[in-house]
C-alpha cells in the first residue's frame, strides 16, 4: 500500500525531492534485512511506503509531526543492519538518518563525543585516538552506529572490560519523541552541555532504552554524547599489509596475547582475577576454538581444508578455554606491572599463553583486530550468516554456565546438519566494567539462502530460549524485544506491561512503529 493523500508531498516539502523516494527498487533495499529469514521465511520484510532522508533535527521533527498528523507510522534507522530495522507494513515511512553523519564535538577534557546517528565506530575511534581517547566498539564491529547502540539497542564489545557497554555509555541525548516534541535528556535539558545523561530529577535513560533498546519504537534520537576513554597509544595506528591481512605493531606500552586454561573453572577464576587487578583494556572470547583456523585461512574453502586436514586440531584444543587480552599501560612501568600481575594470575589458575599468539605476526594481527574490531564480520564468512543465543549480562560464572548449555544444545543441530559444525562452541563475549558482570553468547552460523538451514536456526533459537528459562540463565543480550517480551516477560515480573504503558504514554498515536518493540 502506497502512502495515501498528500503525505508524500508534505514530506517532500520538508526534505526536498532528492531526499525522498517511493520507488520500488529503493524500497526493497530497506525491506531486505539480515535475519529476515528467521521472521518471514525470505530475505525480505515489509516494504516501507517511502524512504526519507532527513538532514537535521528540525527535519526529523517535522517528519514525525507530519506522521502523527496524518496517522502514518514511521521508523528510523542509522546504518540499518538487522531485521529490527524493518518496518511493520507498507504504510510506514522509513527514516534513513544517513545524512546526519557528523561528529559534532570531541570534548577532550570531559572525555565525550557528540555524534549524529550515521557516525560509525571506526570514524569516531580514529578521531578520538588523535586526542588520546578511545571509544567502546560493540561486538557487531566498527561499522556500528555508536548513537544507535547507545540509545536504541543492546550492545557489548570486548573493550567492555574497560569501557562499559552500550547502555552505560550515553550521556546527554537529543531525542525527538514519538509525538514530535524534542526532549533534551540530562544536562543538555538544563542548558549545561552534554556531560551528563541524568537529571535534574528522575533519570529517563531507562525509559529511553530499557535493557534491549526500543529499536526505533520510541521516536528518533538525533544527537548523543557518548563517553570516551583513555588511549595511551599513538595518535594514529599505522596499518601494515594489504587486504585482507591488515595488522599493526603492538606499541611498547601495550601487550597482546591469548590466554588458555585447562578447564572452564580456571577460565572463570582467571577472568575474575584479571578484573580485580584492573589490568585489562580489551578482553574476551573473540576466537572460540572452531574459529581459530580463520586466522590461517583467506577463504571458507581454505578454512574447511585446515579443519578437515586435522592440522589445526591441536591449536583448536588449546583454545577451548581461552580468551584474547590486550593490556594497556599509561607508561612502560605500568605495563611491566600489568604483565607481572598477569603472570601471577596465570600461575595461580594454571593458565598459559599459547605459542600461536607469541608469533610476532599473529601479535600484530590480533592486536589490530581486538583494538579496532574491524573484522567482526568474519563470522559471516563460513555460512554467510549467524545468529545468537544465550548470553545474559550476569555474573561471569553464570555466563560460563550459559556457554556450557549452549554447547550442549547446539550439538543436536550440528548433527542435523542445519548449522555449521563449529565444535559446538562459539561462545562469544567478555566481562564488562572490570568484571562487575559480563556475558557469553552462543553464536551459531547458518546459510540464509538455504531454507532448511534457516528453519533449523529458528528451531535452535526456540530451544535455546526454553533452556534459558528453565536454567534461569537470564534474558539474552541478543534477544529481539518483541519476541523477548513473550518468552521472558512472564518470567520477569511481566515487565512487558510497563513497557506497554510507557510506549502508550510517550506515543499515544502509536506513530513510532512498534513492530520490533511492543504494541
Amino acid at each position, binding site marked *: 500500500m502506497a502512502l495515501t493523500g498528500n503525505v508524500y508531498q508534505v514530506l517532500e516539502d520538508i526534505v526536498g525531492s532528492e531526499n525522498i523516494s517511493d520507488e520500488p527498487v529503493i524500497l526493497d533495499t530497506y525491506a531486505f534485512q539480515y535475519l529476515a529469514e528467521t521472521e518471514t521465511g525470505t*530475505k525480505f520484510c515489509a516494504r516501507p511506503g517511502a524512504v526519507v532522508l532527513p538532514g537535521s533535527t528540525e527535519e526529523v521533527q517535522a517528519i514525525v509531526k507530519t506522521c502523527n498528523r496524518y496517522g502514518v507510522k514511521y521508523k528510523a534507522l542509522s546504518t540499518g543492519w538487522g531485521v529490527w530495522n524493518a518496518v511493520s507494513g507498507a504504510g510506514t515511512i522509513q527514516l534513513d538518518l544517513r545524512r546526519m553523519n557528523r561528529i559534532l564535538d570531541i570534548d577532550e577534557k570531559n572525555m565525550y563525543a557528540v555524534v549524529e546517528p550515521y557516525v560509525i565506530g571506526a570514524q569516531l575511534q580514529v578521531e578520538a585516538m588523535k586526542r588520546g581517547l578511545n571509544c567502546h566498539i560493540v561486538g557487531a564491529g566498527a561499522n556500528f552506529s555508536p548513537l544507535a547502540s547507545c540509545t536504541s539497542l543492546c550492545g557489548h564489545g570486548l573493550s567492555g572490560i574497560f569501557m562499559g557497554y552500550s547502555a552505560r555509555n550515553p550521556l546527554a541525548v537529543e531525542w525527538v519523541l514519538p509525538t514530535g516534541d524534542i526532549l533534551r535528556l540530562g544536562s543538555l535539558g538544563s542548558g549545561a552541555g552534554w556531560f551528563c545523561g541524568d537529571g535534574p530529577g528522575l533519570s529517563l535513560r531507562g525509559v529511553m532504552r530499557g535493557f534491549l533498546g526500543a529499536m526505533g519504537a520510541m521516536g528518533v534520537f538525533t544527537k548523543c554524547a557518548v563517553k570516551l576513554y583513555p588511549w595511551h597509544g599513538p595518535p594514529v595506528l599505522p596499518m601494515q599489509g594489504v587486504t585482507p591481512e591488515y595488522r599493526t605493531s603492538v606499541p611498547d606500552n601495550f601487550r597482546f596475547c591469548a590466554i588458555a586454561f585447562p578447564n572452564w573453572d580456571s577460565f572463570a577464576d582467571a577472568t575474575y582475577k584479571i578484573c580485580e587487578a584492573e589490568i585489562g583494556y580489551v578482553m574476551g572470547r573473540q576466537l572460540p576454538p572452531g574459529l581459530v583456523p580463520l586466522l590461517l585461512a583467506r577463504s571458507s574453502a581454505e578454512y574447511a581444508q585446515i579443519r578437515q586436514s586435522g592440522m589445526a586440531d591441536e591449536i583448536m584444543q588449546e583454545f577451548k578455554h581461552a580468551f584474547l587480552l590486550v593490556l594497556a599501560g599509561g607508561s612502560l612501568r605500568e605495563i611491566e606491572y600489568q604483565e607481572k600481575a598477569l603472570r601471577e594470575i596465570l600461575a595461580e589458575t594454571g593458565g598459559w599463553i599459547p605459542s600461536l599468539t607469541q608469533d610476532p605476526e599473529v601479535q600484530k594481527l590480533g592486536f589490530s583486530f581486538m583494538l579496532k574490531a574491524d573484522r567482526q564480520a568474519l563470522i559471516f564468512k563460513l555460512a554467510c550468516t549467524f545468529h545468537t543465543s544465550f548470553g545474559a549480562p550476569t555474573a561471569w560464572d553464570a555466563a560460563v554456565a550459559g556457554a556450557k548449555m549452549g554447547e550442549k544444545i547446539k550439538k543436536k543441530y550440528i548433527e542435523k546438519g*542445519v548449522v555449521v559444525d563449529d565444535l559446538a562452541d562459539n561462545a562469544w563475549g567478555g566481562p564488562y566494567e572490570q568484571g562487575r558482570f559480563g556475558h557469553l553468547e552462543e553464536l551459531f552460523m547458518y546459510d540464509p*539462502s538455504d531454507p532448511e538451514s534457516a528453519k533449523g536456526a529458528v528451531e535452535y533459537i526456540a530451544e535455546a530460549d526454553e533452556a534459558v528459562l528453565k536454567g534461569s540463565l537470564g534474558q539474552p543480550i541478543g534477544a529481539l524485544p518483541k519476541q523477548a517480551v513473550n518468552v521472558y516477560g512472564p518470567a520477569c515480573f511481566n515487565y512487558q506491561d510497563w513497557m506497554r504503558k510507557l510506549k502508550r504514554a510517550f506515543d499515544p498515536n502509536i506513530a513510532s512503529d512498534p513492530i520490533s518493540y511492543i504494541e
Partner: protein
Amino acid sequence: MALLDYRNDMQRCSRCSLCKWPPLAQIKSWRFSNVCPSMVWGNFHAYSAGGKLIAALSLLDGRIDYSDKFLEIVYQCQMGGACDVSCKVTRDLEPLEVMLELRAKCVEDGQLLPAHMVMIESLRNDDNPMGKLKAERGKWAEGLDVKDITREKADVLYFAGCRYSFDQDLWGIARGAVTLLKKAGVDVGISGKEEACCGGRAYEMGYRGELTKYAEHNIETWNTAGVRTVVTSCSDCYGTFKYHYPKVGKTMNFEVLHITEYLDRLIKEGKLKPTRKVPLQVTYHDPCHLGRLSEAYIPWEGVERKVLGQIVIQDPPKEFRRGTNGIYEPPRDVLKSIPGLELVEMERIKEYAWCCGAGGGVKEAYPDFALWTAKERIEEAEATGAEALVTACPWCERNFRDALEQDGEKMKLYNIVELLLEAL
C-alpha cells in the same frame, strides 16, 4: 556466469554496509572515510554495492521491474570495485561480478542508456567509444620516429588506447612514453590507425559481445605480429588485458605491462637514469584499473558445496579477487627514483583508493557525478599539502583536468611519464 548464477551471493549479503567504507582498519579520518562514490552521491542504500545486490535479487524474483530509477542505480556507478575490496576483507562474495552481470542483463533486456548507446555506436563504426573517426587514430604519434608494427617487427608494442589516441590534450603523455622507451633502447612499435579499442569500457557498461570481439582481434593481431610485450599507459586497457582477455580462451603469446611497470623495470635495470632534480611534493592517485582491478585472471571452474554442516565452499577452492595483488608499488618506485621529488600519501590509497570518477560509462552518462567524484579526490590530495596530484591513467587525468578547470583550482596535475621525462 550469468546473473542468476549469483543468486546465492545476493541472498547472502548481510546488509552490513561494509561496502560503503574503506576496510575499517584503514579509516584514518572522518572526512575521508567513504569509499563508494555512488553511495555518497545517491545516499539511498540502493546505490551501495549491497543495495545493488538486493536490487538484482528483487528483479530476478519479480518483485520489481525495470524503471528509470532502477537504471540510474545500476549505471550511476564507476564500477571501480572499492566496494568489492571492502566486502572481501571478511566475506567470500562477488559484489562487483554481480554488478557487472546486472549491467549485462540490462543490455540483454534492452534497458540501455542513450549516452552509452552513442559510445557503442561509435565503437561499432570506428573502433573507439569517443565519437572519433578511426582514420584519426594514429595522429597522436605524427612526427614521432617509431616503428609501425603493421609494417615492421618490434619486440614491444606500445598500445595507446582510445583516450590517449583521441584526446589531444593528452597526446604528450603517449608521445612521452614512447620517447622514454626509446631512450632506454627498447625496440618499440605502435599500431597507429590500425589500433582498436580494448573493449573494456564496453564490457563494464554491459556490452559483453564487444569485449569478446576486440579481445579476439587484438590477441590475434599481436600474436601474428610476434610482439613479446604489450605496454600501455592506459590503466583501463591494462586492467582489461590482464583480467578480461584471458577469459576469451585464446593463448596470449605476449606479456602485458603497464608503462609504470616497464619504466620501473628499466630504471632498476639501469637503462633509464633519472638524475635531474624535480623539486616537487606530489601525491599519487591509484587508478582503479591499475590497482585493485588489475589482478590477473585466475580461471576457476567448479561448484559450490557444503562441508562441516553449512560451511559454503567453492570446490575446487577459488582464488578470490580481493585487490591484494594490484600494481601499487611500481608507480611509487618510479616516483621515488626521481631526485628531489617527495611522495606523500593520501588517506585512501592502493586497494581502497577513491575512484577518479570517470569509469564505467559515468563520465559520458552522468558528467556532474563524474566531476563531483574527481573533486572529492582533489580535496583529499590537497589535504596532504602536496603541490601536485600524479596519476597514471588518461581517464583519471581527463576527469581531474576537467574538475580542476571547472573550479579554477591551483593544484598541479601530472602523469608519471611527464615527471620522469623531466628527470632525465
